[in-house]
């Protein structure tokens, strides 16, 4: 169905981060938001993306925000970096979705919701770390990976899954020796993302643990957050609920706390 060489070809085709984005991220990392905004303005698509993103209802701004400097100012350092990473990921997303019932707008909505809820979780856990805050944006990369690799094999996948409850990531792992999370890690590496982000991508699969207790706990929150979002009606309809396996035991110790936070 899918071979390891197909995966390798897919990874090799991932474009490096454009210079404008690298420059923008470098300024954000240096705490220079004005310079970062100035660099970002060089890319009209990024500007448009930021405008659409920040004016989504989940951010709750009363009046529309247009200027990039203003947007970065509102978002702050961490969320500005997240937004740029989100844009970077959106460059990889397909123009039309076949495997999943998603659209460009719906995928952006998912990115925005995940980012916002991740912020709430980190605030609840009293964690302030730019890298950790950015980690959430690479989790939807796994959706793009599945879309790209499986769209030509939908019938095979449906047939197989009518006989066995098996998720796409496990199919990939068994057939080609790599899970979607590992491929997402490869993408993060191509874009020179930090070790923390790559570790959290791995932990969000719900299949691994880490010696660093904080990262371990964050992996659990991230895994549960993914499944909270994938349990929303619109994403169930899009086929996201069962494309990766949920591990309830992994999140058992934080599930009550998560529920309190989300449903408060």
């Amino acid at each position, binding site marked *: 169905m899918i071979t390891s060489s197909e995966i390798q070809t897919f990874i090799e085709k991932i474009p490096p981060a454009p210079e404008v984005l690298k420059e923008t991220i470098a300024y954000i990392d240096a705490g220079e938001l004005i310079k970062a905004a100035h660099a970002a303005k060089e890319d009209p698509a990024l500007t448009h993306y930021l405008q659409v993103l920040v004016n989504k209802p989940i951010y709750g701004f009363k009046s529309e925000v247009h200027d990039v400097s203003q947007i970065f100012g509102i978002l702050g350092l961490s969320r500005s970096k997240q937004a740029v990473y989100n844009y970077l990921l959106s460059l990889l997303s397909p123009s039309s979705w076949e495997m999943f019932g998603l659209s460009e707008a719906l995928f952006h909505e998912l990115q925005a919701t995940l980012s916002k809820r991740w912020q709430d979780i980190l605030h609840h856990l009293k964690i302030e770390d730019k890298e950790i805050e950015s980690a959430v944006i690479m989790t939807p990369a796994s959706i793009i990976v599945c879309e790209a690799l499986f769209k030509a094999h939908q019938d095979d996948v449906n047939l197989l899954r009518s006989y066995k409850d098996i998720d796409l990531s496990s199919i990939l792992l068994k057939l080609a020796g790599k899970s979607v999370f590992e491929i997402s890690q490869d993408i993060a590496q191509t874009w020179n993302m930090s070790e923390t982000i790559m570790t959290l991508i791995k932990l969000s699969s719900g299949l691994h643990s880490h010696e660093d207790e904080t990262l371990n706990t964050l992996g659990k929150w991230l895994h549960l957050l993914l499944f909270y979002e994938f349990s929303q009606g619109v994403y169930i309809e899009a086929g996201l609920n*069962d494309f990766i396996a*949920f591990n309830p035991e992994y999140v058992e110790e934080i599930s009550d706390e998560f529920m309190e936070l989300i449903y408060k």
Partner: protein
Amino acid sequence: MRAVVKDGLGIFNPQGFLDGTNTPTFLTLEDIQATKQLKISMLLVSLKKVVFFNKNGLDVFVKMMTEVRNESKATIGFCDYDAKKFQAILKFYGDDINFSLFKSQKVALLFAATNKEEKQNVLVYNDDPSQRSSMAIELFDNGHNPIMAQTKIEFDEKKQNKDNYNTIVENTFLGLYGQKIATRVTGNAIIYTVSNFLDAEVSETFDFSYHTNSLNVGFRLFIFDAYKVLSMNIHAVNFFSKLASTAAEYNANFVFVGMKFDKTPISFKEELEDAGFMFFEELDNILKDKELLKELGAVSVSSAKAKRLLTKSMVNELPRFISASVTTLEMMTNATAEKDNVKINELVLSKTEGMLASSIGFYGDMDGMVILILPYSIAKSSCELLLDESTDDIELILDSLAELVNIVGGRIKTLLADDDINISITLPRTYEDVNNLLDIVSNTKGVQVDLKFKEEKFTFFLTR
């Protein structure tokens, strides 16, 4: 979301959160329609990967499953939960609970009307005495040995000796139970359990397609376990007589065990004997007499259904049959097949050593049998996707080989449906010793396609 079907059990596997808002989106109208058409004896929703649910969420599944039960008489309910979730469901539904709850799929299989499990020692506990008894009766009907604990203390004590029991049943509840006649497989015999008054309704609760499939895949001994039959009327006698006569071309044997005639006219027994039924007092008179069991259940090659020739329409559809088999194998092994040659002849194999085989029958607008013979290594690697881990356990490999052939059958069914040819597929049968298969298809011509996977030979044979 579609149910995963295995061993007559349909299971939905939702993940994450189930509430009144999101759960309806798990099931589209097409999903519900497809579920109603499944030939299953039990339909369950697994809560294994559900972290949160409320009553509104469960209600969506209950409503759909109730519709399925009303049409197919299947047992419905939830499975794979912990004690906390079990108590929550009981609390949500109180006395209105009309579905079943099984702690795990393993426990559910013990209660399924169709089961192929060996006889198991099962420790049973429920604080409600009527539940305890119902479970013990169902388990006994399904060929198991239930051991009831009367109190929680007794249960906790007995539970310590885990080695004494194959399965421990707790946190389980039998709701409105399926009405199908329980079926189990023991060696080469199919055992149907019948009880109470047998009248015209027996034809509604008897699974004809299961029975026909069993005949098609080679079962020849059918035992009716009638210990709990109080009496039968002429309609039931007619039903059994017809059943025996329609299976005459297969040379099948039908047996009643434990049937008493104190409340049933003895003339009915004579009528059934004329139709070909044999009567035994005890089930063990047959099951423990290996010679008799072998004789009654043996596949009689020469007297089985008359051999028939391939039809033109089957040959026309040959590319679809081959495509379904090859692409499935390619999908499962991630290797490409090379076609060696195609010929119409009796099945000829260059070697039988180290090979496994599996067959699946089909009937409807077209009828016949697809046989796959493949080396152990290919069978093993092609089944790895279906197994949770790599294994050398031949039973597991044969079991998943049967599933693989089921997938091939499903694919053939879909491909033929594109040409408006509607077929049903039978239960698959596997052969550890390929010579047994060669005996069954001896003197039968078919289309043989020899293929190569990873330099190993694989044979496809289509026959009638």
